């Protein structure tokens, strides 16, 4: 199904509820009434192409719009990734932590197992927070500055002074895998832990973990296959531009 800008926003959400994630992460308020996608985007100053590329991908998974996203303005991607981070840190991860805490109170959990799981997950939260802070404090501002310098909103000298040695490769050096431990947790709960009786609760925990894992996969795909190539492209453009002068 081809999603187009004249489609009603409410119809789009009905078509596939997954796109709500995009709506939320671009901070578009609900109450769409009869407005079309382009109306809503215009009202909230959202780049409609970027919005369409993402929702089209959410709706047709095997068609990742890599090139279009790379061609687009990096600020939109950074904004999207930033709000995704907030969503993980403020909502999804604390929820999972609470659910694991609840496991501890179940009488038929084997000794220590819930505590172990909780410690494992808390260690993960620490790593996760560090990873995200690094992106938020260093990588994202760097990419935005690259874009601003190329568009003439920041002069080259200021940029060079600020980022004497930093390149996107520096980021890659300590770009750790965020999904790995989520999938490990899923394996431990699903395959290696005796099943507790409170199935409803346990199943819900597994569902939340799998949702986070899948979401992180998307997140990594956007970072590794759009953000990093985009940054490399801009670095190249900047270097070529400055040698030509």
């Amino acid at each position, binding site marked *: 199904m081809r999603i187009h800008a004249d489609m009603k926003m409410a119809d789009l959400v009905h078509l596939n509820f997954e796109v709500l994630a995009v709506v939320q992460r671009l901070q578009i308020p609900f109450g769409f009434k009869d407005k079309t996608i382009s109306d809503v985007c215009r009202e909230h100053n959202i780049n409609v192409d970027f919005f369409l590329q993402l929702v089209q991908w959410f709706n047709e998974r*095997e*068609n*990742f719009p*890599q*090139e279009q996203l*790379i061609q687009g303005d990096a600020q939109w991607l950074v904004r999207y990734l930033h709000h995704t981070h907030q969503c993980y840190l403020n909502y999804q991860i604390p929820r999972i932590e609470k659910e694991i805490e609840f496991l501890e109170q179940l009488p038929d959990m*084997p000794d*220590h*197992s819930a505590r*172990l*799981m909780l410690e*494992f997950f808390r*260690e*993960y939260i620490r790593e996760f927070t560090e990873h995200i802070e690094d992106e938020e404090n260093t990588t994202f501002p760097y990419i935005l500055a690259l874009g601003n310098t190329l568009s003439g909103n920041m002069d080259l000298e200021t940029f060079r002074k600020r980022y004497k040695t930093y390149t996107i490769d520096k980021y890659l050096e300590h770009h750790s*895998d965020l999904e*790995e*431990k989520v*999938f*490990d*947790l899923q*394996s*431990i709960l699903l*395959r*290696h*832990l005796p099943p507790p009786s409170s199935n409803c609760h346990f199943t819900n925990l597994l569902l939340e973990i799998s949702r986070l894992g899948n979401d992180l996969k998307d997140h*990594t795909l956007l970072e*590794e*296959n*759009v953000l*990093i*190539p985009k940054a490399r492209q801009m670095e190249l453009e900047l270097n070529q531009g400055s040698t030509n002068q």
Partner: protein
Amino acid sequence: MVSVLLAEQSYLLRKGLIHILRQFPEVGEIEILGSQLGIGEVLQHFEPDLLIVNSAITAASPDKKWDSLLPEGCRLLHIINTGLPQGAPENQLSIYDSKVALTDKISKALKTISADKAQEESEELTPREKLILQHVALGKTNKEIAADLFISTHTVISHRKNITRKLDIKSVSGLTVYAILNGIINMEDIS
């Protein structure tokens, strides 16, 4: 399950190949890339058993840096944008190949992969692997384990790969949790 990474620019070709791949029940996850951008990262991350890549994409990164990133045991099929001469290698798929020819070539590749996998596939940890896991869970490095057990680091790495595959746990802290849950180490052993 065989995981496949398909790196192909053409939407039509991708659709066609996915259609063929999906006919094989042993094919699990299929990841798609539309260009050479980021292929190194995806290879490292996704660790496919089979990489199907268009020759234009291989040509676009002539230094072939990502070639060394191919995970161990990963098979490679090339998509060639022209017809193929008689007796062309079995790992070349031409865009002019018939469905029968394509299915045949892909089926052969999948069979070798499945055979490789079946050989390593037994789910129980061996006593040796349990011993290695015990050391890993105690926080020892590959080098330390090698020295303790009088084996090469290469052997340690290969044991660790098997442990990870059997348990479906990659991180050291995940392995530690498993080791405690299964009495391979005690909670008190770790600080």
